[in-house]
């Protein structure tokens, strides 16, 4: 059987790994490559590098970071933030990324996902969805790292990106991001039940039990975690041990 994934998410601004709350109030937490290597050695399953300000400035500045990571991190690497053209994707892949996560550009022109899938394959294209709740069981998709609200309902948008060919969804809860108070379980459960592509949940994990609850209450395929690792609340192996103890099928 396939394993549930524990993914380290490293948000980057300029050359620093940073972390905010609700995607805002960014604080430096270290060097992105040192963190990636550390989490790799601790047994994390994948790494996501997200350029936290790229969408805002219209560029992704992670080339050097990915290039360095591919030298000593032999697990899948996803890159996101500010990827707007096929050329941007090409550059990311050539420098060592395996997958790219696309949000803002896809919302403004959904055909971009289709076009990217046609060239690089469905496995390479991750749809990154930033969700914020506005009503009971209702969420809007946001762009530009949580700054701009769109008119897209998250559930509809998730189904649409699946139709467009995205291979995975990286689902970030803006409400929960950085709070360490647990995931948005309703959101995760809804989205993962509505689509048949893998869904990765990001935002809110503060302790191992949060992950156990999430995996038991939804069809989520993986968790993308940041604060809990960056602030050394728990290590990758501690989290995995707890999941294993609770009969979640993971890689050890």
């Amino acid at each position: 059987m396939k394993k549930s994934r524990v993914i380290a998410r490293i948000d980057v601004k300029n050359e620093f790994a940073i972390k905010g709350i609700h995607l805002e109030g960014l604080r430096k937490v270290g060097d992105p490559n040192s963190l990636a290597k550390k989490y790799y050695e601790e047994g994390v399953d994948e790494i996501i590098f997200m350029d936290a300000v790229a969408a805002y400035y219209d560029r992704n500045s992670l080339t050097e970071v990915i290039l360095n990571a591919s030298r000593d991190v032999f697990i899948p690497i996803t890159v996101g933030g500010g990827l707007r053209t096929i050329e941007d994707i090409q550059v990311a892949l050539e420098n060592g990324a395996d997958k790219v996560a696309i949000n803002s550009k896809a919302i403004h022109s959904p055909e971009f996902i289709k076009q990217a899938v046609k060239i690089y394959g469905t496995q390479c294209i991750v749809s990154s969805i930033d969700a914020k709740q506005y009503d009971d069981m209702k969420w809007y998709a946001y762009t530009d790292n949580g700054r701009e609200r769109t008119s897209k309902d998250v559930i509809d948008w998730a189904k649409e990106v699946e139709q467009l060919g995205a291979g995975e969804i990286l689902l970030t809860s803006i409400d929960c991001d950085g709070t360490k108070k647990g995931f948005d379980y309703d959101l995760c459960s809804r989205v993962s039940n509505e689509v048949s592509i893998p869904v990765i949940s990001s935002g809110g994990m503060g302790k191992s039990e949060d992950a156990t609850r999430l995996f038991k209450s939804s069809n989520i395929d993986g968790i993308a975690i940041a604060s809990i690792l960056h602030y050394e609340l728990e290590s990758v192996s501690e989290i995995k041990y707890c999941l294993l103890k609770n009969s979640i099928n993971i890689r050890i």
Partner: protein
Amino acid sequence: MKIAILDYQLGNVRSLINACESLGAEVIFSKDHNEILDSNGLILPGVGSFPQGVKNLEKFDLIKTVKSFAASNKPFLGICLGMQLLFESSEEFGTHKGLNIIKGDVVKFPIQELDSKKLPHVGWNEIVKNKHNSFFLNNLADNSDMYFVHSYYVRPTDSSSVMTTTNYAGFDFCSSVIVNNVIGCQFHPEKSGKNGLIVMKNFIEMCNV
């Protein structure tokens, strides 16, 4: 000793090159016929669709090169799409002919038979050894986790060529093959952490002989 990684402009090869180099191998990334045939081993990588893979091999006139190398008795490793291309045909985006180096075909997972109904099969999964005598799997525990990303899988005609199987959502498929000097794996060793580096090291040692 040098290992050639085939350059046919399909997918991320940087981590593959880095993985080989981190294990001490000298690597050339090449589309040159003579340079490739002079190498001690060849890796056919590939991320993308089957028809695009065939198209690129044709475009760079590499079909003959790959077939000659496979016939040379030197270690040959196809990874992911690079393995699928070795087969007779695939049904990805219509029926397409492959390199016909290994007998059998490439088909999509029957989604209705999967417990999870989720495709692609992406993530970590166990490989179960079928043929225990291949050096490629030396020092690797049975049921080791490897990283997969695919929606299609290979069906070798000769079941004795199946080196490992993997179970995805209740469905068993062939996750690696071996026919003489030709090895194929559906998983990505260069993305499978320490387990992946073990089989890469084995492949490099096979090239060293």
